[in-house]
């Protein structure tokens, strides 16, 4: 298979991904924009998210969720822990993490789509959560200091980055020694031909 970094126009891919998730932020249920993936609380339940603390979140916090699996399959973060959420999107996983870690813990959600950040910040403020913040940035260049996190979470985002090993190096950098990564994402069982790699609609679809 061709070197993916030589095949994909990264700037164009980021532009298209931002546009896709801008649409999700504005129209989570896909009434006006067709989303090629499921969204919302029902989808999270189907993926195996635990009913608690999911039930503590308002519907607005779940509407724009578009994950690909369950990053909390092995359990949620513990009280007092520091969590970084890569590609926090509509904010659901960051908000769940904020409920798990409690007032002594901290959560940083990182996303590159301003509309998603605005949505997440608004919901966190409405919920009165002061232990979570949302930062604009790329997950290939995390705006988080070295060794800050006990846990790194992510759901359905790393697959959208051509430089995946660069993302995992960033995860390594921001984790404390002994810290853990619990993410969810898609894996492909069959190789992707070069023409498909160049098809940005397939990446964002």
């Amino acid at each position: 298979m061709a070197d993916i970094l030589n095949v994909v126009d990264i700037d164009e891919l980021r532009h298209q991904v931002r546009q896709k998730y801008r649409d999700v932020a504005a129209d989570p249920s896909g009434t006006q924009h067709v989303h090629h993936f499921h969204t919302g609380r029902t989808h999270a339940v189907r993926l195996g998210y635990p009913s608690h603390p999911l039930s503590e979140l308002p519907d607005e916090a779940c509407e724009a969720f578009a994950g690909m699996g369950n990053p909390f399959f092995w359990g949620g973060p513990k009280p007092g822990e520091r969590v970084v959420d890569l590609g926090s999107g509509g904010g659901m996983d960051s908000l769940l993490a904020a409920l798990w870690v409690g007032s002594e813990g901290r959560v940083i959600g990182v996303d590159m789509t301003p509309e998603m950040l605005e949505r997440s910040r608004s919901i966190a403020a409405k919920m009165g959560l002061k232990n979570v913040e949302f930062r604009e940035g790329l997950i290939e260049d995390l705006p988080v200091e070295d060794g800050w996190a006990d846990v790194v979470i992510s759901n359905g985002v790393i697959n959208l980055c051509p430089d995946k090993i660069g993302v995992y190096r960033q995860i390594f950098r921001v984790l404390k020694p002994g810290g853990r990564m619990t993410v969810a994402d898609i894996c492909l069982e069959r190789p992707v031909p070069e023409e498909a790699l160049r098809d940005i609609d397939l990446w964002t679809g």
Partner: protein
Amino acid sequence: MISAAGLVDVELANPIDAFAGASGEASAREFGTLGYSIRARKPVD
């Protein structure tokens, strides 16, 4: 790839057909796309 970044004890679990019933299902099936839970840890030393 995860191990190459320095993380250890990599584990994949909980495969799920995340696109089942979605409009992207056909593309997902073409490449055998499944969602997974993935964990690993940063070594202490």
